[in-house]
């Protein structure tokens, strides 16, 4: 068994007085796709945003427990948060291009990280757009405004933007929720390619999607981790009654 990439160790999390995660513990292996699934309000997104410390931006929250990346506590005092976020990229539910061109968007992270070399930036631009399965569609207009892209293209641009920092982990929060089936398939295909190199953690936008892409799946209900199973087990032979009810569509 390989060492886990991310270890979530007894994590509880609250907004003000409202606890949204209760003592969640799970290990995420490298180079695979882990899905967090469950009905809305289960704490999936919160857990995702705890891994790259994006919830630091939200005031009035409390967390207990530990999250380890390669065995190191991401909330440790020696962690440089921007560097952590370069190692752990994120794609949001709604595609939100930054103001400016496609190029500006993809190269935002690398430029902030201090990369100035033009040929290197060009190389990053093309590689990331290819990895996000967008290059062929946009190679002639990388200097056009990003908002001119379709929704599906914008979301793949956001994936390319996250890849530009060469992260080790990619967190995706319902990345296809606003997309049509064709764009969704393209995004899923690029995710399948990407997991060779990256550790992918995704909140899928449907149970079907979860079943298509999961290497392991965690089922969350009202802040509790109900079940965490390898492979397709959770969908075919769920252990918990609640899991079965959810994946067979009895509630959701």
């Amino acid at each position, binding site marked *: 068994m390989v060492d886990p990439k991310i270890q979530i160790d007894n994590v509880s999390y609250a907004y003000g007085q409202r606890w949204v995660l209760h003592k969640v513990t799970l290990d995420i292996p490298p180079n695979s796709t882990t899905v967090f699934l469950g009905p809305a309000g289960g704490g999936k997104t919160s857990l995702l945003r705890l891994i790259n410390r*994006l919830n630091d931006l939200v005031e009035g929250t409390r967390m207990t427990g530990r999250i380890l990346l390669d065995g190191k506590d991401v909330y440790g005092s020696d962690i440089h948060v*921007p560097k952590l*976020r370069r190692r752990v990229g994120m794609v949001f539910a*709604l595609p*939100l*291009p930054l103001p400016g061109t496609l190029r500006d968007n993809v190269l935002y*992270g690398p430029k902030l990280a201090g990369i100035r070399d033009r040929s290197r930036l060009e190389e990053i631009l093309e590689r990331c757009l290819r990895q996000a399965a967008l290059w062929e569609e946009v190679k002639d207009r990388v200097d056009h405004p990003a908002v001119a892209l379709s929704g599906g293209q914008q979301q793949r641009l956001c994936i390319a933007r996250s890849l530009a920092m060469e992260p080790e982990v990619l967190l995706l929060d319902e990345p296809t929720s606003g997309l049509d089936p064709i764009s969704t398939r393209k995004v899923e295909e690029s995710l399948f390619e990407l997991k060779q190199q990256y550790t992918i953690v995704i909140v899928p936008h449907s149970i079907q999607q979860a079943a298509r892409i999961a290497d392991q799946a965690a089922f969350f209900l009202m802040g509790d981790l109900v079940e965490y199973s390898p492979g397709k087990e959770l969908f075919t032979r769920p252990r918990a009654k609640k899991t079965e009810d959810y994946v067979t569509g009895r509630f959701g």
Partner: protein
Amino acid sequence: MSRYWTQRLGFALLGLITLAVVVPILLVIGVIVVEGMGALSWEFLTAMPFDGMKQGGIFPALVGTLLLTLGTALVAIPIGVGGTVYLAEYARDTWVTRSIRLAIVNLAGIPSIVYGLFGLGMFVLFLKMGTSILAGALTLSIMTLPVIISTAEEALRAVPTEFRTVSASLGGSRWQGIRYIILPQALPGIITGVILGLLRAAGETAPILFTVAAFFLPRLPQSPFDQTMALPYHLYVISTQVPGMPFKVQYGTALVLLGLVLSMNVVATVIRSYFRRRRQW
């Protein structure tokens, strides 16, 4: 009465009310333009006044107002915008920041003569700057700050939070997000606030009354520690303090002041619409 006529009557009333707002402004501008045009000449703008200010031009007052506005801009823009970025982007919501905000709101409502007296006490006397451009510009800056801060803060808050989140998720520090995303997006609003504030500074009389303005000083200031004439105060002086002053000179001076303020306003609008067109959300 039928609904149709009620509606017609309502529109007519609203139209009248709108007219009541617009007509006085048009009258003020119209009268000043008509009466003042005759006084305008290259000489009027570039000559020193003489013969008890009844003859010659308004050059030192014009230069004085430009210098005071420039000085105000140099002080108020960095402090105003810097303070706003802190308040809107960094400061947490505590009783300290809440009282700062309260203070800013209240500063905006203070009568300008009070700023003038404060400037006299603080800068002219206590800090021993004397009546000088420096003291005047500092006084005007304090008066301008609340305008700049409240409009700039609104502009910063109008930029969607998600941009900050995205920037952070791409490894940007808070400052990098502000520097590369938030400030450029908020710029049109900030510029509007800055120019509105400076317009007010350029046109005010009371704050400069005791801090910088000279009654009659037919030469240009040599340093920031010099006194200077200024257009609004000059206008006040020639309208009320000098007997036998020709109407033409009074209207001419008012026209120049008005033109200065209006042209700054136009510049502001042009800059703003330029940046608006480049905005992409």
